């Protein structure tokens, strides 16, 4: 084998997958035509999902803190996994407190406004695609005095200090005994001096005159987490993307 033959062979065997797997799909995905609402739909124009909260910044912090190593953000189609049927991961299930089934699989537009899609590496913790929706629902159902933001900040500071909610197939609301394996993210919080109760600090007791304050990074991260509402209620889906036939078409 000559050097020339070797180089040609190497360029060919590398170049073809490079083109077919990386370059062309990358360009194609950048030039996706926006999906339009159908003629019968009450909405017109293009489907442009919007999320509230500090998406770009929070998404970057989510990646930097390595959350993507233990939490996923993808509801796979059923040939690839049971995620749609697992609890409230894909959306809210129909029950006495929920009128319509809002579950759906992840679509490509779900990751808009982020730099990189945090598909996730492992599921040491639950999938977070619908974390915002789930948390609001559970807190309301359990008449909790916490706001979603407070719950999330406490979870980041000390995961074992907040109750965990879970809904197996029977639809019952339980708080499981097993405590979270999520390690505390001490780097996101600052210890500050406070007078009295302290404004904007977490409800934890440390030394007298000191309080735990979430940093800006923690707030941005929580803002991003609470924006994770990738079900049919979040942004009305055009029929072309809506694989859940029972889903309502808009948020009432």
């Amino acid at each position, binding site marked *: 084998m000559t050097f020339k033959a070797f180089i040609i062979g190497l360029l060919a065997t*590398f170049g073809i997958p490079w083109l077919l797997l*990386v370059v062309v799909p990358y360009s194609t*995905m950048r030039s996706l035509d926006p999906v339009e609402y159908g003629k019968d739909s009450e909405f017109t124009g293009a489907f442009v999902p919007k999320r509230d909260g500090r998406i770009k910044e929070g998404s970057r912090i989510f990646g930097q803190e*390595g959350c993507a*190593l233990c939490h996923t953000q993808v509801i796979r189609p059923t040939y690839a996994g049971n995620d749609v049927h697992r609890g409230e991961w894909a959306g809210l299930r129909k029950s006495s407190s929920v009128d319509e089934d809002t579950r759906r699989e992840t679509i490509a537009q779900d990751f808009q406004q982020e730099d990189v899609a945090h598909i996730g590496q492992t599921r040491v913790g639950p999938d977070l695609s619908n974390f915002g929706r789930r948390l609001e629902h559970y807190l309301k159902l359990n008449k909790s005095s916490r706001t979603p933001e407070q719950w999330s900040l406490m979870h980041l500071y000390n995961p074992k200090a907040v109750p965990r909610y879970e809904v197996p197939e029977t639809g019952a609301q339980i708080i499981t005994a*097993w405590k979270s394996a999520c390690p505390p*993210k*001490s780097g996101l919080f600052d210890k500050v001096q406070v007078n009295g109760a302290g404004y904007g600090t977490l409800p934890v007791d440390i030394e007298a005159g000191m309080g735990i304050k979430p940093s800006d990074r923690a707030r941005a991260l929580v803002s991003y987490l609470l924006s994770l509402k990738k079900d049919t209620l979040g942004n009305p889906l055009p029929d072309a993307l809506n694989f859940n036939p029972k889903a309502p078409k808009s948020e009432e």
Partner: protein
Amino acid sequence: MAENNSTADSKDVVLRSSIDRSLRHPVMFLFASGALWLVLSIVLGLVASAKKHNPEFLTCFSWLDAGKVDAAHMSAMIYGWGLQAAFGIIIWLMARLSRKECTASGIILWAAHVWNAVVSYGIIRIMMGEGSGVTYMEFPSEVWPLLLVCYTTITIWSLVQFQVRDAGHVYVSQWYLLAGLLWFPWIAVTAWVFVFLMDGHPLMVAGVAGWFKGTLFSLFFLPVALGSAYYLAPKVTGRPVYSYNIALFGFWSLAVFGPWAGMEKLFGAPVPQFLPYAGAASMILILIPAIAVGYNIIKTVIGNSEVIAESPSLRFTAAGIVLFVVFGGLSVLLHTVPALKLTQFTYTGYGFDVLGLYGVFSLCAFGAIYFIVPRITRREWLSRRFIKWHFFCSIYGISSVVICAIAGGLSQGQGIEDLSQPFGTMAERATQFSWGVTLAWAFILFANLFFCLHLFLMWARLGRRSSHPTLLDAHHPTSPHGPEGEVDNYSSASA
């Protein structure tokens, strides 16, 4: 080609020792700093694994927060240890096989220092929470071009040496090393451009990062490991490679299947379906080069079991190749659709990655290091016991990591697919297996602390002054490396 003529032989010995002398400083620096990074990365891996079953472990240090420490662990292992060990092996092997002295040692040494500085900077940024946020490419975006410049400065001379080699037979190892040398910049530049420079769809950014990680193993670490194995197996046993044709077949099958790897990490995500399927198919087909290389190397060394038992280089290399065949077989089992569905988001992926990086690449790298270091320091290894501990604790540790992670992953996956169980069941199972992983890393740390110590003693020229190599069995009457007085076995140098 060596002639059976004593002047030609002694000229060859002089050439070889001048090649070794020219490369002494850069190669020893690369190996020694690599070994230190290996120890550090294993410590980080221990912390990362410990946090999975004891979440409050070391919470006082925010730079060791979970997630960040996992990223730091993998990045340190790949860029601190893996790439530096690979550099040392590449530049020494290519110089020896092309029979050219290295004329750029000073430049390479400088570049190796800069590499260490850049990697340190990247790891510190990750631990401060200022990484890129992209899984599999966690270094901040400015680190990558610096790494590429250092890479080119270190390895371009090997590409030159190959082109100006004397006419004649090209060894299998040279094809593997040449390919690895070119593949790395191809995948790294592509990944850097698409992930950091251009503004692409978030899913494709994740996909390209996954592709980079997959091809980094199949198109860089694997060729370097195989190139080293194809050099050591004939060299140490004194027999030629069993079949040059099978060797070429193994090489080209890796070249054909390897570049498609990596995107199986996106299985189930809303990307064009053929992408993850192509990745999974490529990982299944990796069995073909694994069997070709395994068959070829085993046939080369078979019948020489005493040599494998005695020679540290061959023992580590043979273990690495056997694990490569195991890797190929496991790859087939783990990348079918039912297996992916079950294990995609479990510890299985981590165990499999560690099998590749430590079990295949690192064991072959250790084999090369145990061979190369005596030749460039002109000293022999001090302690047979250190080498044995390094070997056995590594084998035990890597088997444990792989078994616990893969079995744990299957159990985790089964737990999550079982809808009658709450999520907590799956999480509990995962925690139990992570204890096994932590213990295994502790063994591997123990092994490599001794390796690091041993290597540093050799670097300080405190090795044994002897031309009789350090063998793992003290009672063998003659050395498999050749008669006394020669550090090298030049009379069977043909491959």
